[in-house]
């Protein structure tokens, strides 16, 4: 763990409020107890983190960005009409962000301010999880998080604007590590659309991102949440999103994983109120020697909740994909409906897929199904297109586009859909 010494060292000198310091220390203790997971850990059976531990990580130096760099970030990552919250190398950049014009009922605060003003809502969200069950990377994030954002949608508020949280990393030289924490809290009968983007500006830079997002969706509230992750080709991304849903709430989620040496996305949903429904859609598209690992977990704790998952993957070259979807149905959770499907398209010669859909059911009056497929493009379809003067290369692209389009179509919000299509474009372009 000496790889993280430069980061954990200053923790002792911390001056944050008491409970936060305690959380940090507890997180650090938990991380020290767990260590960086190895393939002997069932949760990491197919993802070997040895490459991650090959580097030493340092906190990001706060260097001023040049005007050209600013323009680059604005052009590539930010849309004008959205509420943008921009983190550069793990630090909130207030100039690039646009909190100014926030409508009533929406509260967006940097994490530091939120902790100082009124920590109760944050504590309430964290108190829902048993810290002794935190995974290694959630514990590490808790220990080291410095920057983050708190988004609060108040009662009966419908936020029209897309809230776009952007994490841009453009490290040069040193390997930096970032531990941003995002809190999203929706009160009763509110609705919001949030996009979380993790992007690397330079495909050569090596860094380690360990973001955690905690979401609490109140009664009858709806959250449209997309996470788009396209890190540099040499970066490590160990992200976790935890969602807690109350009665009749809706989580409409989408995740794109399109880059990183090793990118792990954990999405844990707890359905803790009757009538809650969760949609988990995901797309992963990787090439070269990238590895993308999606772990989802849906915990049905109460009756009459539904969950629906569709994850699709396109693999090229020697890329690898890991998928593990868990569905737990607790004894009380009668009348649960839960679906899960994982489809993989293998286009490269040496790609590899390890998928493990998993059902653990302790109630009898339920309908649960899961499925997984792995295959290639249909030769007949390729032939059909080629017979109509479309080159094989274009035919492959067209059919792959078709494979991913039905998922893209389900992304909440037009601007998000466009943005995600744009992130995906280079990987589709590289096919054939």
């Amino acid at each position, binding site marked *: 763990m000496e790889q993280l010494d430069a980061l954990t060292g200053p923790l002792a000198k911390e001056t944050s409020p008491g409970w936060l310091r305690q959380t940090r220390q507890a997180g650090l203790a938990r991380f020290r107890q767990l260590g960086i997971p190895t393939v002997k850990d069932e949760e990491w059976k*197919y993802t070997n983190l040895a490459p991650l531990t090959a580097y030493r990580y340092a906190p990001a130096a706060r260097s001023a960005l040049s005007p050209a760099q600013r323009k680059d970030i604005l052009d590539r990552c930010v849309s004008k009409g959205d509420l943008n919250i921009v983190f550069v190398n793990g630090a909130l950049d207030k100039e690039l962000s646009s909190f100014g014009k926030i409508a009533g009922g929406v509260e967006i605060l940097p994490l530091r301010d939120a902790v100082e003003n009124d920590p109760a809502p944050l504590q309430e969200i964290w108190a829902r999880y048993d810290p002794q069950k935190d995974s290694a990377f959630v514990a590490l994030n808790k220990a080291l998080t410095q920057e983050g954002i708190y988004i609060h949608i108040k009662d009966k508020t419908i936020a029209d604007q897309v809230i776009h949280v952007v994490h841009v990393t453009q490290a040069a030289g040193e390997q930096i590590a970032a531990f941003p924490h995002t809190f999203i809290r929706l009160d009763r009968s509110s609705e919001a659309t949030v996009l979380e983007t993790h992007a690397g500006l330079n495909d050569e830079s090596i860094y380690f991102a360990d973001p955690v997002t905690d979401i609490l969706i109140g009664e009858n509230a709806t959250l449209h949440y997309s996470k788009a992750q396209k890190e540099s080709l040499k970066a490590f991304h160990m992200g976790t999103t935890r969602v807690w849903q109350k009665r009749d709430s809706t989580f409409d989620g989408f995740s794109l994983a399109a880059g990183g040496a090793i990118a792990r996305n954990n999405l844990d949903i707890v359905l803790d109120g009757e009538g809650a429904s969760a949609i988990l859609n995901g797309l992963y598209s990787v090439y070269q020697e990238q590895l993308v690992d999606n772990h989802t977990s849906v915990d049905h704790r109460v009756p009459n909740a539904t969950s629906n998952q569709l994850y699709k993957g396109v*693999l090229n070259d020697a890329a690898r994909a890991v998928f593990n979807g868990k569905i737990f149905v607790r*004894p009380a959770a*009668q009348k649960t409906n839960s679906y899960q499907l994982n489809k*993989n398209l*293998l*286009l*490269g*010669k*040496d*790609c*590899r*897929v*390890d*998928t*493990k*859909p*998993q*059902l*653990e*059911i*302790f*109630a*009898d*009056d*339920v*309908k*649960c*199904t*899961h*499925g*997984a*497929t*792995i*295959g*290639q493009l249909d030769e007949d379809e390729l032939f059909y297109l080629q017979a109509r003067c479309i080159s094989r290369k274009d035919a492959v692209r067209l059919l792959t586009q078709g494979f991913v389009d039905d998922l893209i179509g389900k992304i909440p919000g037009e601007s998000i859909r466009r943005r995600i299509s744009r992130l995906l474009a280079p990987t589709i372009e590289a096919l054939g």
Partner: protein
Amino acid sequence: MRKPNETKLLNEKTIEENVLTSRDYKYGFYTDIATDRIPKGLSEETIHLICDKKKEPDWMREWRLKAYRHWKTMAEPHWPNFKYGPIDYQGVSYYSAPKKVKAAGAGPKSMTEVDPELVKAFEKLGIPLSEQKRLSGVAVDAVFDSVSVGTTHQAELAKHGVIFCSMTEAIRHHGDLVKKYMGSVVPYSDNFFAALNAAVFSDGSFCYIPKGVMCPLELSTYFRINAAESGQFERTLIVAEEGSYVSYLEGCTAPMRDENQLHAAVVELIALDDAQIKYSTVQNWYSGDKEGRGGIYNFVTKRGKCLGRRSKISWTQVEAGAAITWKYPSCILQGDESVGEFYSVALTNHRMQADTGTKMIHIGKKTRSTVVSKGISTDESNNNYRGLIKILPSADGARNFSQCDSMLVGNKCSANTFPYIEVRNSTAVMEHEASTSKISAEQVFYLKSRGLDMEEAVSLIINGFCKEVFKELPMEFAVEAVRLLEMKLGGSVG
């Protein structure tokens, strides 16, 4: 048919009734018979003792000792999704045989020499051994505790060149064949229980089907545990030479006891070019009482190797007994275009626990595999499907289809699926689907409105649910399996 007003809702029947029903476990009797058993405990001494009793050649003794030494270095595995109490490996007698069986593989030449008590015991189990009564189409090797007491139809099979005998006999008379194949599919170092088995196995069946022979009879082995404080450790080896075909069945039962007895068997199948092996199991070990006391720990390693091109191995299992079932009949698809199949019905009631499934390892080109698994859990039982589909880089054009469905009856049971899918070849195509649900109220209503009572309706629906698997079983076994399921469900539903 019962009158409609007598019908009961699901789970309404009291547990007492459930236990008292005579249908619950009719094989729970104990045969009081003089036995020749070695003292409890496990050491190198024990292994020498077993070898001496069986007058085994030195190579066998060496192999057992190697296995034992390896076993001592291994830790008891506890990764499956169930708990089992500590097993006292020193508290078990590793060899227990009815006295009147001629020891050392001399085996009775004709079934008339078998102890009439034993014949009676097997008759009670529905396995007639005597010349007049035995089933005409099936050759039976009857294994009682640690030894095989007799094998029927041997002469008839010999005419076709088929060798079907107890393992003890095989080691003595067909040593070269046994030496060549034993341990080639499940090496003694494979896992904890396979190592234990390799060290102390006492008997089992051996089948050898020569080149181009369609085995004229169904071959079968019936395993019976009788003695207390013992375990059963048998080893089955089936070798199908080029272009041959064999269908093999196994059945098993044990007396009702409060202790947990360990059954750690190993089954190895080898299919050469164009050969086909069909292996069917109807497992009905004693499963413990409603509180989960007693019952057999069924920790078995079963694996088949499709060594030759276009060979085929098909596993069919009906798992209806044992306190804990822990087994994954697997296929190593090594030969090009070889085929592996797995059809399973696992029914758990009371507090039974099952962690079962299959492994399909695709190595050869254009290898194909099919997995159909049906799990039914009732009462407070726990039923798990755990499977692995592994497609290695060499397996161009490999194809797999898996389907695992679970049905839950009652709200205290659980059903879990853990399918592992590892694909390392981009020309592979695989599909997996799984579902979990309860018996449809509409279907029950439909049947009840046509005069069937609750129990009959549920039984019929479950039969339909399992039909895909039952149709793979040989006819007599399919009938037996349906009856077994009805018997097991009798207490839980209706």
